[in-house]
Every structure is written in C-alpha cells, then in structure tokens.
C-alpha cells in the first residue's frame, strides 16, 4: 500500500526517556507493529532513570528496534510513506538519538519527516484504542513527567487548561514508592500494593490551587506522606505499606478525577479521555469511569501497552500532523522543554 491509494503508513520512533521504541501505523489508527525495548531493569539498580545510560542504550538498540518494527509490519522501507520521531519533551541526550536517526533515515530514503510532541503522542494513543474517537474531548495526561488537563478541540488543536504547579502525578508515585521501600518504578508498585490496603486508613490532604480550578498540586500531599512516615519511624511504629499506598493513591486519583470532571462539565464536553503512563493505573481508570458514568459522560483510555511510552502513539499523532501539511527538515532538533500546544 502506498500513499497514492489514500493510505499513509508511518514509521514512528520514540526515545525520549528509557524506552527505545519503533512502530508502523497506518492512517493514524491501525497498528501494524509496535516494538518497545525497555531499559527498566537496568535503571532499577540506580533507583531511577540515569540519562547517560539511557542515551547509550538507545544508540546501541535503535537500529535493531526499527528493523524489528518493519519486519513485524511485513514491510520494507519502500512501504513507509513518512518518518516520525519524538522531538520533545524529554531527556535531551535520549531525544537526540531518535531525532538524529530519524533525520538520517528521512534524508537517505527521500521521505517526509514529522517531529512529534511526546504528550500529543500520548493523547493520540486514544485514537489507536478507540477507532471512532474524534475531538472534541477533555484529556487528562498523566505520566512520570507530566500532569496536564487539556481540551482537545481538534486533532491538532490542544487547549491546555490545567497543569501541575509542582510535581507530576507519576513523580509523586515514584517518590512515595521510594519512601516506603517499594523502589522504582513507583506507579505500578504502589498500584499493586494498594490492592491489599484500606484507602480510608489514613486521611491525606487533597491540594487545591486557589483561583485555578483545573490546576493540580501534589507537593502538600507528598510532604504529608513523608511526614507520616517520619513520625511513624520516630515513634517506632510499623507502617502498613498497603494502607499507606491505598490512601495516598486515593488522594492522587481523587485530585485528578475531580479536576477532569469539573473541566468537562464547565466546557460542556461529554467525552473524557486519559493518557500517559499513569493512565495504566487501575484505580485511576476505575474512578474516572465511575465518575463519568455518574455524570452520563463517556470515559476512554488506551490499552495498557499504549499508555506507557511507545512509538505507535508517535506515528498516530504524526499522521494528523502530516495530513495538516506539517513537514520537518534536516534542521529538526531535540527540544527537551517543549510545551504543549505550540
């Protein structure tokens, strides 16, 4: 299939943090392959992502990952119409590997190049899982580095209405997980530990940002959890990890869900989506679904494999950019601090 038959097949490349990924996606929604080489076991030893190690591994693995993505899609480079790559935000050294590789491929193959915003990729992951999803909808983007609330007006029109004033939601999970000795990565570990715990055991605060109804703050919650642990340690009391995780997680999830529903209601939008690594959190998914059902809204989230960093979401987002005429050239650079909606 080629572009002339109205099909656009995109090779996506993602290397913004600790996953080297490549995928082939047709027309923004049909995933032909989705290869992810995770470095998580290596970084776990260090208690977090080490940027230099991540960048080195990207450089070693990237060709093998791209090759596998093509093979699993049953295509050669001649079956690819567009090369897409995450240009930011992310770790600069890690981003540069993907960007340099993608630019070289596009130039050598005489294919158009599209640089993609990582967060727009996460949002686009919902187009893969939900074939009929169309804007407008409200999207909560939550990951280790991001907590954004956006009104998605069109495929390329993002109105950022809320964000975190301090830590990202996923970052808070990681810090709490570290504090209670669960280790890295925090999100899945806290989620698992919570299943055995009582979410009402400990009353943690839900931070509100005055006069900013859609913004988030987690620093007060984080301090409360750390203080609780310190107090318990000073008194020589044993901490019930499951109860602590469940109570903490409930506080985070309630903050996320309440702002999202509030936003959808005031903007008069009946569709709510979640995206990003934390959208794989089972409690967040359940709570958001219940809250949406109570308001008669539709609740959407990607399949777990498209929640964490992947290249299929990058190829999907690139499709809508490409249709809109977006083309990057040989000067494309990594933008570690790229903002959403510009």
């Amino acid at each position, binding site marked *: 299939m080629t572009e002339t038959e109205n099909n656009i097949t995109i090779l996506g490349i993602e290397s913004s943090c600790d996953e080297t990924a490549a995928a082939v996606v047709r027309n923004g929604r049909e995933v032909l392959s989705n290869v992810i080489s995770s470095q998580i076991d290596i970084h776990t*030893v*260090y*208690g*977090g*992502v*080490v*940027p*230099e*190690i991540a*960048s*080195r591994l*990207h*450089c*070693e693995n*990237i*060709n*093998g990952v*791209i*090759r596998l993505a093509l093979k699993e899609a049953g295509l050669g*480079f001649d079956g690819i119409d567009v090369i897409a790559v995450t240009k930011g935000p992310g*770790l*600069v*050294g890690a981003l*540069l*590997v*993907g*960007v*340099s*590789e*993608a*630019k*070289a*491929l596009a*130039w*050598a*193959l005489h294919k158009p190049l599209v640089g993609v915003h990582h967060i727009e990729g996460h949002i686009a992951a919902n187009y893969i899982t939900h074939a009929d999803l169309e804007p407008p909808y409200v999207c909560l983007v939550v990951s*280790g580095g991001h907590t954004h609330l956006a009104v998605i007006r069109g495929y390329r029109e993002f109105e950022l209405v809320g964000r975190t004033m301090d830590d990202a939601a996923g*970052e808070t999970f*990681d*810090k709490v997980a*570290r*504090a*209670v*000795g669960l*280790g*890295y990565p*925090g999100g899945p570990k806290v989620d698992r530990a919570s299943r055995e715990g009582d979410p009402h055991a400990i009353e943690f605060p839900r931070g509100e940002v005055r006069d900013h109804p859609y913004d988030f703050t987690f620093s007060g919650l*984080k301090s409360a959890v*750390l203080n609780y*642990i*310190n107090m318990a*340690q000073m008194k020589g009391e044993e901490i019930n990890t499951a109860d602590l995780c469940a109570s903490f997680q409930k506080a985070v999830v309630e903050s996320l869900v309440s702002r999202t529903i509030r936003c959808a209601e005031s903007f008069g939008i009946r569709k709510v989506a979640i995206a990003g690594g934390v959208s794989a959190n089972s409690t967040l998914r359940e709570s958001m679904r219940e809250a949406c059902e109570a308001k008669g809204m539709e609740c959407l989230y990607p399949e777990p494999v498209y929640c964490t960093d992947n290249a299929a979401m990058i190829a999907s987002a690139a499709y809508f950019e490409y249709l809109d005429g977006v083309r990057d050239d*040989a*000067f494309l*650079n*990594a933008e570690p601090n790229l903002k959403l909606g510009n």
Partner: protein
Amino acid sequence: MKILAIESSALVASAAIVEDDLLKAEFTVNNKLTHSETLLPMLESMTKIAGISLEDIDAIAVSAGPGSFTGLRIGAATAKGLALAAGLPIIRVSTLQAMAYSLSLISDDVICPVMDARRGQVYSAAYRSGAVLLEEEARDIHALTAALNECVPEEDSCFLFLGDGVPVHSETLAAEIQGDVAFAPAGLNRQRAADVALLGSVLYTKWLQKNGINAADVRSRGADNIDCFDEAVMNSDDFAPEYLRKSQAERELEDGTLEDAGRHSLKKMQSGLIRPEKAETR
C-alpha cells in the same frame, strides 16, 4: 570506492567524502550550534554541491570516540540511520587515530592528539610512524606526560601535540615533556572528517582484502547480507561509540558511592526521581 565520513566528537562538526585516497568534498563548522542542527544540513549541502548522492557511497566511516558523549551519539545515530536506510556497512574509526593520521604520514615525530576531557583529564594516545606508542585512554594530564617520557626516553625525541586539549594544557606539556615539544598548526590541529574518511578508506580496503571481496560486491549484496564483519567494519546495528568512560552513575555504583535509593531519608526522597545530568557530556 567512495567513503562518506562523519566527525562530531567535539566542537567541530564535519562531513567528508573521499574516493579512494582523493578528498572529493569536506564541510566543517566550528560554532556554538549543536551537531544535531548542523550535521544533516551539512550532509545535504555537501552532497548536493559535490554532485554525489548516498547511492554512490560504499561505506560510512564514523569518528567513534572518545569525545563528547552527546556529540558522539549524534554522529553515531546519524551514521546508523544512513547505513540502515542505504544498506551500507559502518567503518569504526578511532577519533584520536584519525586526528594523528595525516601528520603521521609526513613526520617521524611522536604524534600525540590530546582532547580535553574536563576534570583535569585528557583523552589521548601517541603514535609514531604508524605504530601505537600509547593506547587511547582518559588520563590525568600529568599521567600523560609521565607515560610519554617513559615510552620515549630519548632526550632528542620530538613530540607533536594537537587537539583541543593543547590550549588547556600547553604549559604543562612544555614543562614536563623531556624532549622537543611542538604544536600542530591551525589547519591540522582539530578533528576533520577528511581524516576520518581517509583512514576509514584504508581500514575498509584492508577489510575487503582480508575477506577476498570487492566494494562493488558489498554494495550490490547490501550490508545485511554480509557475514564477515569484524570490529573495524560492521553492520550498522552493531555500531556504538567508544566513550572510554563509564557514566557517573555506573562509576558510583562500582565504587559504592551511589546513593542508596531505597533508604528512607526525607532529603533523598525530595531530591527527585530523575538523576540530574551533572554536565555529564564529556
């Protein structure tokens, strides 16, 4: 036989094409732009002006390191992308050896490329008449002068230094080296892709001869169908830079100074998940 070379190990970004031992094109910039902004636009312009396309190229030579970690990776990923797309082999060329290559053909001096590696260290090696006197290594500058004095004990030896470590350490070199000290002139004292291409061409020719094949064979079969690759000429999948240094976190883990991430200390918990990139670029 045409070799395309990429050099981005330090401040200089450079690309070149040689045909056998003839330099056909070279594009070198030394400015503050990142290599990610310069390298591919340079390749685009250079090939266009030289009238040579990637389809004419037999292999990609890369300055493999040591050098700036990020710079090396931009060059490596660019080369890997080109080689993957065009089915070409990659020739691994030592950055230091390439720097010394042209000078070693015209001089019997000890040629000593010195790259500033920060923290009082240099990436360096020493060559004379094509032989390796000192292996490439990250050394303290005083360790380098001591090693050079030891391996070349004759008082009348001549040492020719080049590289961006020279302006940083010229006084130390002049004071501590026993023998004549000279510094390469401006046109020969920084990395250039022409040297990478010329040395790459020599390495590629040796590899072809060793395996009894010719360049046209490799090009028509494509790199993916070649099974006699080695550490000098390889499939693009297997190429990675030679950093000569581990990451800071790996060094800390080895010598036991890495913070115990699991310990319940408030200060550490608040220090954030992502370890800061402590200017770890060299």
